[in-house]
């Protein structure tokens, strides 16, 4: 078809229309471009100066690291999570501390004396808060009273129950002033104990025992610990910059009494990420000085030929049964049959596949010390011998006792991370294969899992427990009928009896014998099935030396670390 030739008026119209369209288009383009740039500028304004991280920064004598999550706050009286614990370990120091070899060492107290029910601390006079004021015995008393006060509702208040009247103050039955501590002068602290505690000197290294400056605390009007400026520091570092959700910068504390000990001037917590692959890539790009490895990225770490290290972090993981009457897992024969088929060596060696993990044998992990040497060497745990034939007999007995034709599906509560997923599916398949038990997996996030554990909404749960202090009792009293962390509500007179005796005793030999009895009872009565002791596999920059991973206290400790100078060849 041939277009009819356009008349003059038509072409003129088309021209104006075209021009108009062009102008509109141009204006729209420019407007969008301006908007884009403005938004970009705004976002840049909001995001504060992000420092470019460098694993080892020789010029500033600084290292960069990543943490898994941001501390909710750094108020030592209420802190519970690992990230807070790690930072608190660097910016505060208490009466005593652990040295690089995990031995007790003088901190702010230069001398201490322990008798049965009284502990006497002598504080050094040159210990200062980061504003230059002196750290006095009164600061400790105030910190402990705060942690115990019912209004603060600290989850770790129970650690202070060893102090006379601590439990009553926490319950609101006595005023805080009744706490069994006295301060003869500014630099002496005398603690009365509720009953003899064999390990009280080790307890005072825990964050809940840290001092809190009373005047400053009251001046912050409830915001103590919420930001870098809402804190006074007693430890090797101060927080000089805290960008919430993004990074923290720790700088050497000039008022710290022992500052010559600290070799690294700045610790830049450059990233907050719980994604292990992201951390691995930061490490690969030389942006952070250390990272942990998971089973998935172990192979690439081997291929990169990094120096891999491992560490037992002291946490044990176990299959906990619900012993409440309403759950069929309260039946001994049912639990015993599972004990006879679940092969924890298979779990650790073939399924979890991480170095550092040990097959679970006992409620007490290997690091705990007995009288002379490791507790587990002195009292080896009973070796669980698998026996599928006997397991099936126990299942029959269980069905008979419960009056059931078949065992109904059991609910297995578990966390929502990759490692727990695999383990839960392994438990599910093993029990199906050997005992023909149906297991339903209930995956929940950490908080929800804890809530369900507390409410008893499970038959079995993949639970874990990390040590709070360096004594077998931190594990030993878990299954006391009065312990709220006994989520399965296991209750037996024998267990309660052993635990009461341990708590009343200070003689190491007697205590260890009692712990051995608890260990045996956990096995005999199948209170739990220990699955594994957790290990951490990690890599460290080859020039960063002296970094310490701890079982108790901050998970990672840089206070003894230093940067090795580049060797000149």
């Amino acid at each position, binding site marked *: 078809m041939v277009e009819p030739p356009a008349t003059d008026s038509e072409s003129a119209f088309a021209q104006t229309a075209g021009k108009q369209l062009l102008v509109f288009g141009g204006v729209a383009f420019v407007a969008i471009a301006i908007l884009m740039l403005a938004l970009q500028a705004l976002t840049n304004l909001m995001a504060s100066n992000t420092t470019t991280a460098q694993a080892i920064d020789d010029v500033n004598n600084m290292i960069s690291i990543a943490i898994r999550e941001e501390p909710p706050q750094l108020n030592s009286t209420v802190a519970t999570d690992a990230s807070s614990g790690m930072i608190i370990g660097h910016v505060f120091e208490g009466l005593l501390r652990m040295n690089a070899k995990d031995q007790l060492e003088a901190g702010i107290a230069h001398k201490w004396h322990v008798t049965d029910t009284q502990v006497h601390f002598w504080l050094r006079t040159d210990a200062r808060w980061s504003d230059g004021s002196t750290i006095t015995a009164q600061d400790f008393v105030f910190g402990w009273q705060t942690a115990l006060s019912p209004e603060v509702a600290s989850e770790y208040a129970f650690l202070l129950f060893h102090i006379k009247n601590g439990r009553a103050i926490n319950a609101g039955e006595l005023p805080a002033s009744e706490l069994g501590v006295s301060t003869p002068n500014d630099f002496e602290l005398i603690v009365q104990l509720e009953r003899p505690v064999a390990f009280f000197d080790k307890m005072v290294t825990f964050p809940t025992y840290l001092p809190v400056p009373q005047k400053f605390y009251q001046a912050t009007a409830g915001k103590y610990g919420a930001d870098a400026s809402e804190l006074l520091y007693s430890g090797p570092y101060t927080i000089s910059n805290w960008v919430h959700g993004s990074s923290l910068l720790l700088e050497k504390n000039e008022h710290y009494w022992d500052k010559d000990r600290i070799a690294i001037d700045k610790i830049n917590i450059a990233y907050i990420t719980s994604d292990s692959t992201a951390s691995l890539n930061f490490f690969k790009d030389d942006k952070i000085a250390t990272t942990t490895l998971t089973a*998935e990225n172990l*192979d690439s770490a081997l291929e990169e030929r990094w*120096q891999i290290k491992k560490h037992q972090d002291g946490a044990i993981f176990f299959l906990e049964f619900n012993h409440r009457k309403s759950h069929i897992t309260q039946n001994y024969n049912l639990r015993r049959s599972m004990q006879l088929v679940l092969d924890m060596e298979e779990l650790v060696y*073939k*399924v979890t596949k991480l170095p550092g993990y040990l097959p679970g044998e006992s409620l007490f992990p290997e690091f705990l010390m007995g009288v002379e040497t490791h507790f587990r060497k002195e009292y080896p745990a009973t070796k669980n011998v698998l026996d599928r034939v006997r397991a099936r007999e126990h299942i029959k007995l269980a069905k008979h006792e419960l009056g059931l034709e078949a065992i109904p599906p059991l609910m*297995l*509560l578990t966390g929502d991370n990759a490692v727990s997923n695999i383990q839960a599916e392994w438990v599910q398949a093993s029990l199906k*294969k050997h005992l023909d038990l149906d297991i339903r*997996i209930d995956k929940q996030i950490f908080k929800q899992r804890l809530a369900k554990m507390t409410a008893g909404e499970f038959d079995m749960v993949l639970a874990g427990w990390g040590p709070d202090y360096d004594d077998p009792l931190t594990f030993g009293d878990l299954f006391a009928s009065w312990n709220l962390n006994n989520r399965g509500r296991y209750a037996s007179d024998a267990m309660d009896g052993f635990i009461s005796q341990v708590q009343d005793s200070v003689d190491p030999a007697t205590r260890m014998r009692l712990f051995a009895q608890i260990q045996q009872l956990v096995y005999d009565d199948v209170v739990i099935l220990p699955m594994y002791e957790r290990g951490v*596999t990690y890599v460290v920059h080859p020039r960063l030396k002296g970094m310490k991973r701890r079982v108790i206290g901050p998970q990672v400790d840089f206070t003894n670390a230093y940067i090795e100078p580049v060797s000149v060849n």
Partner: protein
Amino acid sequence: MTNAEQTATTFSADAFAPLAQDQDVQSISRPSLSYWQDAWLRLRANRRALISLWLVVGLLLFTFLGPVIWQIDPTIQDVEQISQAPGANRSVTLVAEYEPWQGQGSSRFAFAETPTTQSVRLQWENFNPSYGYRVYRTPYSIGPERAFGLPLAETLDPFFEDRLDLRPMNYYYTVMAIDADGANTNNYHTIEGTVARVITLEDARSRGLVTTQANPPIGTKYEFAWHPLGTDYLGRDMLARLMHGARVSLFIGFFAPFLYVLIGVIYGSTAGFIGGVTDQAMMRFADFVVALPFLLFMILFKVMTNTGPGESGIIPMLFAMVVLLWPATARLVRGQILQIREEGYISAGRLLGAKTNYLVLRHMIPNTMGVILVTVTFAVPSAIFTEAFLSFIGMGVAPPTPSWGSMCNEGIKTMLTHPHELIFPALFISITVLAFNMLGDGLRDALDARMRNRE
């Protein structure tokens, strides 16, 4: 029309006689084709569409007939064959039952026994008894960077037994003397050894490699069960999991779009055809449904239907998708109907006395078929992906039931080391999506009423 003057003509009576019936005019040269026959003819001519049709048929066979032919339980875990690639070496040697071992003492660093996947036993001469040793393992040779690999253990004894995730391959073991601080020293020895895959008699019996009565000698060679597509992170057969996973994925992929597109078509055509206030009210309701958050409602439905943890959330998922995803289709169809309603042939149809039902079913819906099919084509893969996503966050299938999406999500964790765990389910999702896209394309061309009678 012109106003020209009429010319007078004279007619005879003959001119008004009816015409004789002429059979030839009425005869049809080609067979009459119904709408569907015509569509089928045109679909057959489209080669891409035909290939994808066969792919879809193949997928259906894979899903329904596959498990009948390949009768492997997709939930059985084989911890000896974890993350096996397809075509991996499956030969295995019979060994004695595992016995704990305490070392015998040796004058040099050596394997105490032939290294096997059951255990690797190392012993060495006491060369620095003061602080103990650290044992390392790596599959890569040790160069000047002194990367010894995985630290397996610290020990005071001059022997060590390794049982951690042993694979039939070559390993370098290093024993290193450590100093008082637990740091490495320059005092170390390395040996190399190849690990052989082994099996115990009891294990062989439970796998059916050996009959219960037979008592073959140690050293007899066997072959592990064959996994054509390899195994996943718990040693489960990938092919069986893919077949069973297809059920869930295709069930959601077919039914959810089918149902919500159907609802959308009915709703949209009603609104569009009636128009006016009714149309306004109906479309505002559709807008309201669009604003409802899918995930939240999915959770609410799950709670409402009492789906406990550990139970499959597929039915609530289907329900949530049907209830919440129809407005997109409804809007498209309504727009089309509004447009078609004003077309000349509809007015003509009305004038000829066509009923509403006839108009809608015969003229309007067939003319919107193109739009509807495009919607369905996109809805199928998006439904499969939605299922994958929901299974990932724990709202979909409950383990051990597999679905392609959950398999992908598990496979992506080991993408670099065991790519087959991701590639196979991803390949199946891709093929399905591609097949549906091409088939939808072909169907649109074939079913579009406007394309009729065009070659």
